[in-house]
């Protein structure tokens, strides 16, 4: 490409990156600003007196640490459980030929399209009948179910990519089916599992509707999105508190993303190449 064009392209890439990153920068900045500076008519994009007041307020006013832990437990359980279940199911639909296989695949695809939010009402009654309202189980169970179809659909490509010859060689060497599954196939599919788990982690960590609907009276079981909104009163929001809580809520996801970043890009590439 000619020089001036590449320069223009690179300049605009950097500009777009700055615009996209700006809201996150402003969030962290506002979390560290002292109260007087946030509620000012002339907001400045820097602060000369960073303070931890907002964070202290967040962790002091409520059992914020507990909500953080609740969110972590829910998201962690969902990621591990759905990854294992989806791995088994994806193996079944790619490594075996059996009746209703295509029907099942189409059903998994259709299941992905079900608007989870529309099911809040029947799930609310289901959780009530199971005695799960106000427990973390009421968040874990539906989220496992809703991340499965997409996870199975995505893992299919990764399982398919492992050559059949490897499987035959393993059996010839006397490996049992279980041994092949967990010691050979599982490690090979791991990058795909990581890419898939990003989606289930995010949708669970972000979940607001189920937490709002199923955790109705026992606030000790609240998760972070609910806790954050305590600081956001539409008429008089505590912006410092909201931004500090937002920062605390966003950091774990960012860390998770940076850790799996490389695998995510190659994982998506692998899934779509198929």
């Amino acid at each position: 490409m000619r020089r001036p064009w590449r320069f223009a392209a690179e300049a605009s890439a950097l500009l777009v990156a700055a615009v996209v990153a700006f809201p996150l920068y402003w969030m962290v900045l506002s979390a560290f600003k002292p109260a007087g500076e946030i509620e000012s008519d002339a907001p400045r994009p820097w602060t000369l007196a960073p303070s931890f007041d907002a964070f202290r307020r967040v962790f002091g006013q409520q059992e914020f640490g507990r909500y953080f832990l609740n969110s972590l437990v829910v998201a962690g359980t969902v990621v591990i459980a759905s990854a294992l279940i989806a791995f088994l199911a994806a193996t079944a639909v790619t490594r075996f030929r059996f009746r209703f296989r295509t029907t099942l695949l189409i059903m998994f695809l259709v299941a992905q399209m079900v608007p989870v939010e529309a099911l809040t009402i029947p799930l609310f009654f289901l959780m009530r009948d199971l005695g799960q309202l106000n427990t973390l189980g009421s968040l874990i169970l539906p989220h496992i179910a809703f991340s499965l179809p997409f996870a199975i659909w995505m893992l299919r490509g990764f399982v398919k990519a492992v050559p059949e010859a490897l499987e035959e060689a393993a059996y010839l060497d006397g490996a049992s089916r279980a041994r092949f599954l967990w010691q050979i196939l599982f490690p090979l599919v791991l990058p795909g599992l990581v890419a898939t788990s990003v989606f289930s982690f995010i949708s669970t960590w972000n979940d607001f509707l189920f937490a709002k609907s199923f955790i109705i009276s026992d606030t000790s079981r609240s998760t972070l999105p609910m806790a954050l909104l305590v600081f956001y009163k539409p008429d008089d929001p505590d912006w410092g508190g909201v931004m500090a809580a937002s920062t605390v809520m966003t950091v774990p996801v960012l860390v998770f993303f940076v850790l799996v970043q490389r695998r995510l890009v190659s994982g998506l590439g692998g899934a779509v190449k198929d």
Partner: protein
Amino acid sequence: MTATARARTGTPWIYLAPALVVLAGLLVYPVYQLGLISVLEYTQAQVSGGQPTSFQGLGNYAELFGDTEFWRVLVATVVFAAACVVSTLAVGCALAVLLTRVRAVPRLALMLAALGAWATPAVTGSTVWLLLFDPDFGPVNRVLGLGDHSWTYGRYSAFALVLLEVVWCSFPFVMVTVYAGIRAVPAEVLEAAALDGASQWRTWRSVLAPMLRPILVVVTIQSVIWDFKVFTQIYVMTGGGGIAGQNLVLNVYAYQKAFASSQYSLGSAIGVVMLLILLAVTLGYLRLLRRQGEEL
């Protein structure tokens, strides 16, 4: 049939069992319940067991379809989702192409910024964007010199603000996926096109676009599904649906009907309508895949 062969036919079902049990209990059964509640009389009295449930037939649907507010919300949902999908795809694809044209440092910067936006939880993103556009303390109004103009007061400016946030947090998925797709195109193919004297535009139109088509279909469908179901952003940014419900979309509308005014049957009927619309999209998608000859 030998013993091992019989074991083989049973094995896939053993592997599938956990997934099928979970999906049957927490997806299929609730869908059935949703349909059931939508044809019953189901309000607070029935929930608490004070009154028996009674069969309403299509009465709830008749009530819903007779309500002008429902049609207004339906139209708003479709238009809003379409605007989100088009903007997200345009931004995502343009930036994916841009990523292939720059060297490592700008690429990394854009990639990291996009991953940051992607990773931001919807609730957090909503509150941050509200602060950015806050009439009193937000930087955007200062920079644009808008004084204390309120973005959430007018119907269209409120929808526009939510649209910006939605595009911000959903273009990264499109960008990363399309970028991965472009990178997966073998270099030899592009070299061959260049050797044959194809122009940049011609290469894009006749070589890249057809190879990327399956990916574009996937990201389009995913975007349609996600944007049609936007809940958190609308709920948080417009305070539960805006002034006098001017910013309601179907999802929030169903939630308000069910949990705010205890009309569970009407809420479920709205859910069924959403389900049917998305099902139609899915079937269209499946036909498209079939026509492309992809083997399931």
